[in-house]
Structures are given as C-alpha cells and as structure tokens.
C-alpha cells in the first residue's frame, strides 16, 4: 500500500510540543536548517519541558539524527534549565533504539516510549492468554453480526481496515464472507498478531495484511478505505475520540466507520439479578477509575455524529442465553470474573470483601446462563456512520 507522507513539523505552543511527522532525510546541515529553526524557536518560547513528538516520524536518516543531537546539545548550553522529552512509539521500529541512545547521551533529555503504557489494562489485554477468550467472544458475536454488517454498509470487494483487530479472526470471517479487494488488520499486541498470522496461514489465506500499529497514530493513508471497523476496542481506551478521528481520517468519503462497544452495566442475569447488577455496576466503576468506559456502547451515536458522520445507524446485538451457545457464553463471563477480580481489582486495591462480592455476581451471571429457568444478556451496541463526500 502506498503510504508515504511528506515531512511536516508543527509547534503547538499551548502544549509546549513540537510534532514531527513523515520522512526526515536531510542531505546535510543546510537541508536541516528549516527544521532547526523551528526547534530553536520552540526552545526559546517555552519554559520547563519541551516535548518533541516523534510518534508519526516514520523515517529519519543518520544525518537528521545527528542534527537532532546537535540541537539537544545546543539546548543544554542555551537553556540549561530546559528539559527535552522525546516521545516515541514502538510502532516505528528504529525509534526506541535511536532515541534511547540519545537519552543516555544527554542529561537534559528524557525518552518516553508512550505506547508502553498508553491505555489502561494494556498488559492484560495484549497478553496471549486472552486468545481463547477472544476467539469465544468472536464466535458468539459473529453469529449475530454477520447479517447486520450488510445493514451497516459492508459489501463485497471493498477495501476494509479492521483497527484493534486483536487475534484477527473477525478479519478472517469478513474475508471469507465478503471477499474484500483489500483488508488490513492493525493491533498493538504482537502475540495477537502472530496468532492472527498463524491462523491465516493455516486457513490458506494470504490476502489479509496484518500490521503492528497504534490506533491513535495509524500509518495508513487518509481517505483510502470503504469500511473501517473497530470492535469492542474504544471502550478500553481513555481517549476514544483520538482513535475515532483516525478511523474517520482513513475512511474514504462516502465510506462507513463501523463500531461495536458494550454497555457493561446492563449485563443481566435472572434470577439472581441484584447480585449480577451490583457486580457489573461495580466493575464499570473500577474500570472507570483506570480510564476505561465500559458503558461506551450507547454513546457511539453521539460520538459518530459529533465527528461529522452522516446517516448514523445504531442497534443492539441481541445476545442472550436463549440464542447463544451456553458453554461459550459462560466461558466469556468466567474470563471476565478472572480479569476483574484479579488484575483490575489488584490495580485498584479493592478490599477482599468487595472482590468476593464481585466474584459472586459473575458466578450468578453464569448460573443464570446455565440455569434451565434463567435468562441472561450481554448487551453490545453496534453503530456506523458515513463519511461525508466533501
């Protein structure tokens, strides 16, 4: 995919940040001079910390690297009290190596690999132990989503981007059902992507491209996909709007952005519904204290509308224990129990009695799923909107 971006540099005075993007490959100091002028101006204009944002800088040659080092050295002389914070992303494979080296060379420089901990619960969510759970979730959701996707504009031979694709199984299912012209899956978990690649290979599929990437700074060209999806993902990020902006950016005018997210507080299980309801409401609060919004689902309509999308459509997946494989449904809830009473409770230092009550609510949900007389739901909302032609 053609994807080259021209070089750009912008100084955001309010944020004390210089953002560099694209390809910076100067022939020598003269070639670098305009960049140096920007950097010098920024260093003169700020106090305390100057952020140098390299998240979108895809290419930098050694000449440019040395010129940046010269700027840092000059800053130490001219502005001894000024700290330089270099913000880099592991999505650009050379960046942590080079800037880590610079950080060790200069006392005025701090290097922050921002995607090492850029959303809450990242360690657990990107862990390969979640793979069986994610597969089960997809099995449940796909049976309901398959037809619904058509109502939201997905058709055959489209260009599709699946952002936060996880283990890539949705991409595989879409590939088989809709025969896209091109489909790319992007995720920030290397174990998930390796699994995705392995599955694609085993199924003899060679036409799905998987990329390691950051959903808030995609290296995908603007206006290039007919259908852009992000499923069960925006709810775990503390800044979903920054992802949504990227989804809209890469979507073609006339194409559609398609999202799914949960309304966790409305998970329901009868007969022990009070216990179930308490647990999910508590789980939402705990997740919220870590920056996640597990009730994001119903908010998608306004989010898509606020992004300027047209023809916004929204509905709910009707997942209940009456229309879903009981064992699969129960396994998903058991995995939530493990996650919430383990990792999330530990991270937020929940007292043992709260953890125990949380655990009971999940078990009561499973009871409702498995009980002959029980009724259980898992509310997932689906929304899509069309990007205006101009």
């Amino acid at each position: 995919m053609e994807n080259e971006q021209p070089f750009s540099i912008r100084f955001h005075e309010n944020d004390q940040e210089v953002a560099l993007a694209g390809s910076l490959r100067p022939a020598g100091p003269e070639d670098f001079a305009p960049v140096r002028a920007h950097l010098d101006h920024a260093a003169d204009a700020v106090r305390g910390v100057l952020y140098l944002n390299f998240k979108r800088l895809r290419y930098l040659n050694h000449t440019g690297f040395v010129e940046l080092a010269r700027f840092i050295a000059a800053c130490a002389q001219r502005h001894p009290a000024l700290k330089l914070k270099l913000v880099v992303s592991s999505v650009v494979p050379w960046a942590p190596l080079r800037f880590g080296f610079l950080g060790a060379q200069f006392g005025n420089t701090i290097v922050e690999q921002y995607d090492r901990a850029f959303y809450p619960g990242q360690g657990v969510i990107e862990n390969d132990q979640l793979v069986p759970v994610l597969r089960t979730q997809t099995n449940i959701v796909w049976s309901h989503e398959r037809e619904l996707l058509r109502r939201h504009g997905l058709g055959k031979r489209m260009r599709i981007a699946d952002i936060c694709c996880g283990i890539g199984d949705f991409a595989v299912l879409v590939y088989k059902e809709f025969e896209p012209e091109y489909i790319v899956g992007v995720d920030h978990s290397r174990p998930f992507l390796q699994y995705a690649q392995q599955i694609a290979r085993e199924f003899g599929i060679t036409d799905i491209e998987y990329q390691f990437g950051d959903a808030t700074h995609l290296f995908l060209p603007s206006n290039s996909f007919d259908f852009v999806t992000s499923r069960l993902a925006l709810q775990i990020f503390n800044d979903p709007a920054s992802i949504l902006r990227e989804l809209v950016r890469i979507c073609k005018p006339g194409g559609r952005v398609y999202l799914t997210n949960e309304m966790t507080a409305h998970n329901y299980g009868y007969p022990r519904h009070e216990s179930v309801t308490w647990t999910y409401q508590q789980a939402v609060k705990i997740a919220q204290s870590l920056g996640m919004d597990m009730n994001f689902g119903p908010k998608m309509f306004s989010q898509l509308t606020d992004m300027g999308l047209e023809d916004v459509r929204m509905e709910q997946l009707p997942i209940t224990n009456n229309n879903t494989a009981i064992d699969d449904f129960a396994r998903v809830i058991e995995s939530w129990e493990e996650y919430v009473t383990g990792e999330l409770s530990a991270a937020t230092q929940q007292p043992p009695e709260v953890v125990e009550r949380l655990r009971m609510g999940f078990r009561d949900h499973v009871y409702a799923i498995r009980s002959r007389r029980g009724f259980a739901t898992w509310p997932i909302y689906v929304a899509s909107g069309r990007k205006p032609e101009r």
Partner: protein
Amino acid sequence: MTSEPAPPSPSGPSPILTLRISVRGLYDSWTHCQRLADYIARFVASDRFDPEQLTTRLSTYLNEVLEYVFRARPGDGEIVVEVGRTDEHVIAELTMPADEALAARLRDDLGRVSQPDARARYEAEFQAMLTRAPAEAGLLELVALHGVKLGLREAGGAGVIVLTVPHE
C-alpha cells in the same frame, strides 16, 4: 578481499529483485536515495508478515547505504542492487564501479564498521560526530544500534556492499 563476509547460507538467498541504475541518474537528486530505498523495501516486504514494519526497517537501512554511495561518488557506470532472502535474513548487495581510490576507501570504511566492537565505538565517537561525522557514521550506526550486518566484496573493478537484515 572481504572485510566481513555475509553470513553463510546453505543454499544462498532466493533472489527477489535486481535493479540497475546509472550513477549519473542517482546523482541527479539526493531524494533518489530515499525513493529507491522505499521502492525496494516495499517490494521486498510486500508478502511478509507485517509488511509495514519490514518496509520501514529495510527502507531505513537501504537509504543509509545509498546515501553513503551517493557521497562516495563512484565513477560513471551502473549501480546494481540485488536483493534476496533466506529463512532468517533479507540480503541486499549493492554493486558499484570502484577505482583504486574508491576501493581503498570502501575497504577502510567498511572495515571500521564491521568490527565486533561497533557499539562501543559508536558510543565513544558520538560526541565527536556532533562536530564532524565521518563518512561511514551512518553505516556504523546501522551495525551498532540496529543489529544489521555490513560487509564488502571486491570483484573486477567493482565494490559490493552486502547488507544483511534479520526478518524480525
């Protein structure tokens, strides 16, 4: 003469692409280095797992070698870029016309770059590079920081820079 041979491969690399460009053509514009590097990298990475990551790495490394060649100013003739792949590596060979003076320079530069203590040398020399960076500084960085191997082969008035890049 070989300063640092490319790692042996039992069956040799499977060829992927060969490009021929005139030295004069390359000199027309500095930006040809990056255009060529980007094109080759995208072509080579296209059928790999995570092609964008491999493209970014390959283009970064190839561009550095091409910029070195651009500055070395070989005499008239052709530059040939041949890229192949083994199970573990992408191997790019860049052949250029090299008279005696250029051959000696290549020997010196690639010889210094290919030493096992590249990282220590890069660290020790970095501050001095801020005043004046030697011609091979970019190549040294590839070996020191990025785990790339660089070697030199000489054959009949030509110098061949061999770049060996792990897939992952």
